[in-house]
């Protein structure tokens, strides 16, 4: 489904702040895989996601989506197939607009943005149903501007917006990091349900090792731009918390 071949990325080439993040990086993700990625701060996880989505250019290498090379394809075009929740909660929503307006905007992704009404009143109940699943009570605040919500609430809405349309790939960058433990649990279960129901190939970065172990069928540990542990299927199910902690602390 997604394949990275010998991808290299260095930030600020030719300056004193030159920083090589990925070097000859290879990764292949199969259709319907749910991959959890863990790794210390600054290990290049978000950089990897930015490369897959086209938010940043790569220096070398190739990126494939179902055998089609997409390395040169613009970011916005790749989002026809990709849904993404960013690490920073405010990136995923329009803060000046209401919850309802944000959802309506996202709902129209596969259609045209023409001169018909932005909000389809008939769909409001459908939106409320989706918000109810978050168990944050947001369904009562459809007309609240998103800027008046907490970071965690914004993050949850980003998830709904990212998965509202049929997508092939879901990219989750610490999408539960801004949430309290109980809400995080709810959102994680909801995420898993959506992924299974819609059969979406998923990449998820998390700092919660428990989630990495309990969810998904593949587990990657990244360190200094390299994959230091790659467990799939059965092997992955047998991975223990202690083992992961161990992998983190060794060089």
């Amino acid at each position, binding site marked *: 489904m997604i394949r990275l071949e010998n991808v290299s990325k260095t930030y600020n080439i030719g300056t004193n702040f030159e920083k090589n993040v990925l070097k000859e990086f290879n990764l292949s993700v199969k259709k319907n895989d749910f991959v959890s990625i863990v790794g210390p701060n600054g290990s290049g996880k978000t950089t990897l996601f930015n490369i897959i989505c086209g938010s940043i250019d790569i220096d070398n290498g190739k990126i494939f989506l179902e055998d089609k090379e997409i390395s040169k394809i613009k970011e916005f075009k790749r989002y026809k197939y990709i849904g*993404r929740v960013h690490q920073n909660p405010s*990136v*995923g*929503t*329009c803060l000046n607009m209401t919850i309802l307006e944000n959802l309506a905007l996202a709902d*129209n992704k596969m259609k045209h943005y*023409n001169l*018909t009404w932005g909000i389809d009143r008939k769909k409001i109940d459908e939106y409320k149903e989706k918000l109810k699943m978050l168990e944050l009570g947001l369904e009562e605040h459809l007309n609240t501007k998103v800027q008046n919500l907490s970071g965690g609430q914004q993050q949850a809405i980003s998830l709904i917006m990212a998965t509202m349309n049929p997508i092939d790939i879901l990219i989750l960058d610490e999408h539960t990091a801004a949430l309290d433990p109980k809400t995080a649990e709810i959102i994680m279960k909801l995420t898993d349900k959506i992924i299974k129901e819609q059969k979406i190939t998923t990449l998820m970065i998390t700092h919660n090792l428990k989630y990495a172990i309990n969810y998904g069928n593949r587990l990657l540990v990244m360190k200094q731009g390299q994959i230091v542990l790659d467990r799939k299927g059965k092997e992955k199910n047998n991975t223990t918390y202690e083992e992961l902690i161990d992998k983190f602390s060794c060089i």
Partner: protein
Amino acid sequence: MNILIGVIEQGLIYAIAALGIYITYKILDFPDLTADGSFVLGAAITSSLIINGVNPLICIFISGIFGFLAGITTGIIHVKFKVRDLLAGIITMMALYSINLRIVGKANVTLMNMNDIFNMLNVPVVMIMIVIVLIIKILLDLYFKTKSGYLLKAVGNNPNVVISLARNDGNIKILGLAIGNSLVAISGSLLCQQQGFFEITMGNGVMVMSLASVIIGLTIFKNIKYISDTTSVIIGNILYKGCVSLALLIGFEASDIKLITATLFLVVLITSRNKIFEIRERRKT
């Protein structure tokens, strides 16, 4: 009384430009200096067409189309060639100065004794302007409720959302600049018809004046729920014109207007705490 009517007339004419600046500055977060040029562009096209006997109403539409093109130009310079927003606007504005002189042929032209929309009908200028401004306001309000309007609001607020909707954020920005500048050009077209002459300098400071009135309007009516932004901008412009004529009444010279505008603008910026440039800088870091 006459002064008051004059203020409202002028306020309504310039309010259309202010609505354009509201779109570029407030919705797109783009300080667009093209306005000083596209305002004159509207006037230049209108005066040369009117002299050639074209129906004044059609002149307004054609002005709008050319303003649209001016906005697209700035948009392409900014989006495709990655020139900073302020500079992109200045480049188009510069180019338009020469283009406008070419269109009219000279720096001043009188339209006295020519047909214009104000002497075509036997109705006071204020009434005609109220109708025109109302039509534009209602059309804009409706547009902002459409899918396309939502996308325009989204691109100024957070381009990432637009990108993740698989849409080209740059193109939508260009569309916004085009709509904004077509309104500015329509405003210029109406002003030259109302005052009965064209002057190459008539657009100087339009961007700053409009921005001042946008901020005045939005600040005053910020906490009143049932007044739409477009209404606030229109009233803001009339209030702004009122302040300027008050200054003239109490003894300032016409040549002081720029100083008054600059001072007023500064006061408005400081008191409204809408520190545009600071916000923009913060966002970049």
